[in-house]
């Protein structure tokens, strides 16, 4: 037998053996998992009354503490599933239960585990179950080598609800191990309105990415105190376009008529269609009729998306905007189709296209 033939035979045998091992493993796992799923379901059904009893604060003699502490690990999974759905004393009761059963202590130990998913799951658990304890340890994981763990740490800090975490989270948007903006944004939103003063300060103090994010969040909160600073950002032609767009969106959400002037300026003077579109959308949200004339001018913009946004904004301005749109819609100009489409949105399709294939 030649050497290549012998090698091929050997390799073929090895590959075939590997296939057989895989198949046996597949069959075994299929069998084991099917049985385990049934067993877990049964256990869950048995443990649920125990959880309900704990939540109902039944007399201690009906649910002896040792029983709760000695219950199988599935109880922790049930409690952790329930926790995000509960508030107030029920939530605190279950948090206490997890602490009593040593779940929180084990998670703290796992924060330094070698495997990233264990660190990630540990910090997630602490965010849900440990309240504002361990915030420093959780914040330390914002600089973890694994991106998934960093994201999990940010989410956990949001859930933990300690306003002191804002600084950690905002700083985590920059640097070598920067966190994605959206993850930080959701965590900051989770912290609620108590962090608004810190966010307002950050609007001027932080760097580009964080500033844009903060502008967006202040808009989501609809914080009127932030409007003047946001208006300055929209006006500032030297500012990053992304930040200006975020500020424009925020002003639309806040809805103060004082913001009409900088938004009209952005719509009229900017050369960036995305900023123009955002400004038009914000003007529509604010609904200030004094924006009618610039929005009408926007119907003739070169960019089709800007034209559509201006038409929608006019439709949102009430009677004055509607009258203007109707005038344009009945006219012969290039803006007429856009105006008709916006009116369709407003009242349903009462105006037929003037020509088939008008798209």
């Amino acid at each position, binding site marked *: 037998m030649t050497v*290549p*033939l012998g090698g*091929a*035979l050997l*390799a*073929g045998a090895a*590959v*075939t053996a*590997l*296939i057989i091992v*895989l*198949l046996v*493993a*597949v069959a075994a*796992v*299929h069998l084991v*998992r*099917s049985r385990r799923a049934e067993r877990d379901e049964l256990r869950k059904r048995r443990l649920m009354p125990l959880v309900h009893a704990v939540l109902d604060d039944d007399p201690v003699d009906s649910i002896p503490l040792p029983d709760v502490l000695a219950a199988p690990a599935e109880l922790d999974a049930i409690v952790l599933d329930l926790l*995000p759905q509960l508030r107030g004393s029920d939530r605190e009761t279950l948090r206490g239960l997890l602490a009593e059963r040593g779940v929180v202590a084990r998670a703290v130990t796992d924060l330094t585990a070698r*495997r990233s*998913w*264990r660190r*990630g*799951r540990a910090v*997630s658990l602490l965010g849900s179950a440990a309240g504002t304890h361990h915030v420093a340890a959780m914040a330390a994981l914002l600089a973890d080598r694994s991106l*998934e763990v960093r*994201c*999990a740490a940010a*989410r956990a800090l949001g859930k933990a609800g300690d306003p002191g975490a804002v600084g950690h989270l905002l700083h985590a948007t920059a640097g070598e191990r920067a966190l*994605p*903006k*959206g*993850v930080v*944004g*959701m965590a900051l*939103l*989770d912290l609620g309105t108590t962090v608004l003063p810190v966010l307002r300060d950050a609007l001027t103090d932080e760097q580009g*990415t964080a500033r844009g994010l903060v502008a967006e969040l202040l808009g*989501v909160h609809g914080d009127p105190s932030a409007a003047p600073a946001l208006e300055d950002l929209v006006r500032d032609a030297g500012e990053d376009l992304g930040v200006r767009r975020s500020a424009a969106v925020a002003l639309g959400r806040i809805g103060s008529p004082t913001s009409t002037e900088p938004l009209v300026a952005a719509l009229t003077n900017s050369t960036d269609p*995305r900023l123009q579109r955002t400004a038009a959308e914000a003007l529509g949200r604010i609904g200030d009729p004094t924006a009618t004339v610039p929005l009408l001018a926007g119907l003739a913009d070169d960019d*089709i*998306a800007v034209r*559509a946004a201006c*038409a929608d904004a006019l439709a949102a301005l009430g009677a004055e905007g509607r009258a203007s749109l109707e005038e344009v819609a009945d006219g012969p100009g290039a803006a007429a*189709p*856009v105006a*008709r*489409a916006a*009116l*369709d*949105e407003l009242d*349903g*399709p009462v*105006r*037929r*296209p003037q020509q*088939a*294939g*008008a*798209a």
Partner: protein
Amino acid sequence: MSEVFTDIVLGASWTVLGYTLLMDTIMFTLVLLGARRVAEARHWKGAEGHGEIFASPLTPAVSLLIPAHDEEAGILDTLRAALGQRYPSLEVVLVDDGSTDRTFELVAERYRLTEINPRRTASLPVNGEILSVHRATTGDPLVVIRKSSVGQKSDALNAALNHARHPLVCMLDADSLLEEDALLRVARPFVEDPDNVIAAGGVIRAANGALTDRGTVVEPRLSRNWLVRIQAVEYLRSFLLGRTGWADANALLIISGAFGLFRRDLVVEIGGLDHRSLGEDADLVVSMLAHQQRAGAPHRVVFVPEPVCWTEVPETLRVLGRQRRRWSHGLAQLLWKHRRMIGNPRFGAVGTMALPFFLVFELLGPVVEIFGLASVALAAGLGILDLGIAAVMVGLALAVGTLLSTTAIAVEVLTYRRYRRGRDLLALVMAAVVENVGYRQVHAWFRLRGLMAALARRKPVWTAMPRVGFSGDPAPAERLVPLG
């Protein structure tokens, strides 16, 4: 002379065998990379924060774009699944691309469509004529565009893009069913990393044979049709492992046209989908990557290794042949169009790894495979083939091919376990073996013909495959019907 000829024939046979083994080795490496990633992802199950993303005001709205040509068999199920997505803000833009069946009538009746003035948000070139635009009066966020067909799916998608309103666009085939939280899962990378992510896709599986109910896959089952079973294994291997592996290497080229999510502004910026391309999904991703790279802008293409979409696959060889010829033709167009990126380190792993792999093993693979079969047959005919050696080598190549598929099936069982019935798993394993004998060679022939069509610069035409649909009878008592 005859000795030289013999040497050439034998040399060719060995070259082909070496090529096959090399390709299988690379595939196996990708499979292992993907398996590692999938296993890792499973550890995070439950901690991904899908609920938070659903509730977050930062989650961007999505326009679901569905091009449809003669899709009466399944269009209502597809729309039900699309409109029933658990997602905070979405619209569905359906393009009836010159259907000659009752596609439009069914949708018009079900959603009580009414004609509206078109509201365009982009000016991408559309070759077909826009006949009318409609919207649902049932309260569903559905817009339907009727246009004349020019035989290009990309044309239908560009028409949809011109009417899409939202910052993210999801392209969905009209023969596909989405899982309830498909959008949520695939949009997650955009929510978390809005500055960098430009495209994302998820795992697509064969729907034929599954139990469906009003647009929902109630229980994934395997069809009795062996052609479908083999494709089910192909999809498992390709989506569960192959693409996950490429994404892990930061070199993912293809987000499937059956279900993919993209940043709308960027798609519009590059001029929409290429009318001339038959592989418009891959072409879109590569064009976006090239555009961002040239602009020095950040870009990440993400693959979410979770089953999110179920699609109807061909049930006959004739339809399969047409589909695979089109894919091969599209790949050839893609590689020719982006030839300057091939091997170019400026484009990172996409330029140095993915594109060369697709050129050498995907596009030229069928040439080598058919040439190899021919050379083996010739050698046997000339009596110069050592049957013992040939049998061992062919056996080795088949074993490696089977190992690839078996690994994919094993990962499925160890992680997602969508196929619960033991007999389905057994059928999958058998299909993994059968695939290598006959199917693989016929498949190579289809792909070769696609390549030849591209070389002959034949005009690409999109013809939708005949559909069976997802539910045979809308009568409530008969809704749970297996297909295929």
